[in-house]
């Protein structure tokens, strides 16, 4: 890392710390309301206690579990359906308008009907999350399978490849970047919907935690909970990115 870059990183860190210290001072001198804006030290302490006492693990696990089930379900279904629909001009003609209709639909709108049909349990939660998360993967996959370079199709025909081999060796790798783009959005959606469902249906998890903290005016815990959610989003995204970079390593070659 060059000296310039290092200095910039340092400056960025200094800036962030300065802001936090400013907040700390304002809160401690009561210039701002400590109910709404508790000093960062209290929030950090609350965060520390959440982890030290182990109270964070159960809600975190609950949220992650919900999110994971929903996301995996949605990803598999979205990928398979996307592959089928994307590679068939016929299916696309009949189904694309319907898909386009569902794209702008607020996925959380499915919660009230879901509660009516499935009640307030884990099944409802995972179903809602899966329903919301399937669209980005589905649409991404359709897009990826739709836009396979026709030249590659000709190469496949020249080599007299079977349809299955074509899908496995050419269509899927070709569509993978688009599929991953969809997976990434789906992951974010899964987290969001997991939190929404927890808040709505009072299910144990990180979302319920912060709602509870708000109701009891325990704002340091509220902020701590927000940080945990932010970190969860960040870390899950990072893991996905690492996997993506491994699978799509060939894209580096095109960077020049």
């Amino acid at each position, binding site marked *: 890392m060059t000296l310039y870059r290092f200095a910039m990183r340092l400056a960025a860190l200094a800036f962030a710390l300065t802001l936090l210290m400013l907040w700390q001072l304002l809160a401690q001198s009561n210039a701002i309301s400590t109910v709404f804006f508790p000093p960062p030290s209290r929030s950090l302490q609350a965060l520390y206690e959440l982890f030290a006492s182990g109270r964070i693990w159960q809600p975190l696990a609950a949220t992650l579990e919900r999110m994971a089930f929903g996301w995996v379900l949605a990803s598999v279904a979205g990928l398979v359906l996307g592959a089928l629909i994307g590679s068939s001009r016929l299916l696309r003609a009949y189904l694309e308008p319907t898909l386009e209709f569902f794209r702008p639909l607020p996925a959380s709108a499915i919660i009230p009907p879901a509660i009516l049909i499935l009640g307030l349990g884990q099944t409802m939660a995972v179903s809602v999350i899966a329903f919301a998360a399937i669209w980005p993967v589905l649409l991404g996959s359709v897009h990826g399978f739709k836009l396979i*370079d026709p030249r590659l199709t000709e190469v496949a025909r020249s080599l*007299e490849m079977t349809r299955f081999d074509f899908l496995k060796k050419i269509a899927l790798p070709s569509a993978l970047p688009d599929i991953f783009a969809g997976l990434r959005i789906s992951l974010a959606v899964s987290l969001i919907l997991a939190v929404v469902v927890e808040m709505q249906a009072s299910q144990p998890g990180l979302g319920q935690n912060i709602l509870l903290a708000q109701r009891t005016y325990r704002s340091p815990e509220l902020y701590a909970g927000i940080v945990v959610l932010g970190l969860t989003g960040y870390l899950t995204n990072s893991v996905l990115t690492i996997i993506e970079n491994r699978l*799509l390593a060939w894209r580096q070659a095109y960077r020049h």
Partner: protein
Amino acid sequence: MIAREAGSAPTSEANTRAPVSQSAPNILSLDSVTLSYGGNLVLDRINLDVAKGEFLCAVGPSGCGKTTLLRLLAGHVAPSSGTILFKGAPITKPSRDRAIVFQDYSRSLLPWRKVWANVALALEGQGFPKKERRERSQALLAQMNLAHVADHYPGALSGGMQQRVQIARCLAQEPSLLLMDEPFGALDAITRQSLQDEVSRLAAEKHLTVVFITHDLEEAIYLGDRVVSLAARPGRVGDIVQVMLARPRNQLTTREEPLFLQYRHRLFKQLEGH
């Protein structure tokens, strides 16, 4: 083997052919092949025979249907009328036995596979175990002086190298017929020359039959045993020139030979007239 042609231009050169035996059978036979597309006549009654082991070049201005002709030979497109016989049987669909090298090499290689795996693609589904596929692929790459890039991704290679990888993949199919669609059109002059020599060498070594399309007159004469000049709109056979230049050919000396210049002169006039 004598080519029958539409139109009245005669083949003025002797009907004997230098490199290939006269009794070699025709591997390709086009009889009155016509193609119309969307109301336009693209190819008009093409008559052509290609002998086994022959290096046939086709030149023509843009719009003369030469790419379409190649796609007909590959089997990607069917003629509107007339017949194309390959080894005596009509062509109905693409086949591994007729490999086609496209001009846009970057789109013809799989960017997510390394170079050796791209070549190995042609060997998959043929019953070779994985280890053997890799070995054969490496061997072919070595033959083409590409062994050092075998583990690279196509995206990291220069244009000329990518095109050679595509050629390697086509050769891995062990085809009877190699079709080349302006393969060097997107490359710079120096790379083009070195690839011309390489293709010439490979064709001779492997006794391949090649149909080579180009708009570059001199390239066609330099490479070919025969050069077919195509007229445009609609595409039809204009002139067929038997190239009697000695092999192996040389970029410097062959291109200076009086015979070369004669062919060039004649074909140039033909193309001008179109």
